[in-house]
């Protein structure tokens, strides 16, 4: 995946091509990471009983970006799956961030503002400020 080249303005076609690739590789990477975690999870706890009938929330290693990173360092299989899911959630966020760069380069002030609002709302949710 290469970013659009050249120092001039990017055309809409270049932007579309890059966005398409970004989404594809984001989803594939996320699915692969989650799958690796899932295999470890099944090997380690495949025969354990499930308890999804009752809502218990999640331990802190699974409820924030920092927690997931800690969990992955401790080689917790569930945290590895969660890392994959985080990459998946980050894929559309990365797409919006790239759109912001593209609109900046196109000197499209209106859409720079619009895209910034969307990006801030996403980061607000993802970084857990509402805790």
């Amino acid at each position, binding site marked *: 995946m290469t970013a659009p080249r050249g120092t001039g303005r990017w055309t*809409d*076609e270049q*932007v*579309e*091509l890059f*966005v*398409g*690739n970004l*989404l*594809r590789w*984001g*989803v594939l990477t*996320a*699915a692969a990471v*989650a*799958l690796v*975690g*899932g295999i470890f*999870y*099944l090997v380690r*706890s*495949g*025969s*354990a009983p*499930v308890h*999804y*009938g*009752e*809502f*218990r929330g*999640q331990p802190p290693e*699974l*409820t924030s970006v920092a927690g997931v990173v800690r969990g992955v360092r401790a080689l917790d299989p*569930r*945290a590895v799956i*969660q890392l994959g*899911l985080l990459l*998946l*959630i*980050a*894929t*559309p*966020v990365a*797409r*919006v961030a790239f*759109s912001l760069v593209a609109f900046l380069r196109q000197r499209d002030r*209106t*859409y720079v503002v*619009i*895209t910034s*609002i*969307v990006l801030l*709302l*996403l980061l*607000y*949710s*993802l970084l*857990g400020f*509402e*805790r």
Partner: protein
Amino acid sequence: MSVLALTLLVGSGAFAAGLLGALTGLGGGIVIVPLLTLVFGVDIRYAIGASLVSVIATSSGAAAAYVREGYTNIRIGMLLEVATTLGALGGAYLAGLISPNVIAVIFSLVLFYSAWRSTRRREEHPLAEPDRWATRLRLDGTYPTPAGRQAYGVRGVPAGFALMYVAGILSGLLGIGSGVVKVLAMDQVMRLPFKVSTTTSNFMIGVTAAASAGIYLTRGYIDPGLALPVMLGVLSGALFGARILAGARVRVLRNIFSVIIVVLAFEMLYKGITGGL
């Protein structure tokens, strides 16, 4: 049930949902929550979390192809994402405040509506004259047709924006893509050509879902052991469906899928009213 058995069963169910969703164009996300709660007895909060994650996967996967084909209107998508992300944040807050039974009742209403929409034929509008907002925000675009690129205008921007806020709330509250409301806004109100409204709606679903996903994660709605088979199942079902789409009998499948949705809607309504969830 053991983790392994649940993973395999939920994964197969999600695969079937993704396959039917892709073949009928209705999206598989809408049946995931009823499937998990009614068939597998999963708490609706875990079900919504897992469903939302799968919605991000399928929409991003499909958007990758559509964007490159040149149907998606990125400016319209970007503008309306302000409304859907705001709505999604609001919906995710609401989900924490209202009881699971009320959520189930609202969910059943959305299921009924989706089934009803799917039986109605969509009519292509004559090309619209753009309104003031569309011109100011440069929303008008072109899309590929067999006869070359066709230009189109955009109408009803304020009303479409408002409807998108509602779509965002439903997405954040129920863990669905709300494609049916998004397409309604863009087809009926903004008068976009089908291909443009369908692909732009799909393009926005991932961003809308990501806005509520962060809040769900913080609240512990996203359980990796459950979300993984749902996500991989729906994604592989949808990708497989897109491959075999050419030979499929879409009308028959659409009717079958609609009947399934209605049955799930009744059951969801019953459980919600009797407090069985």
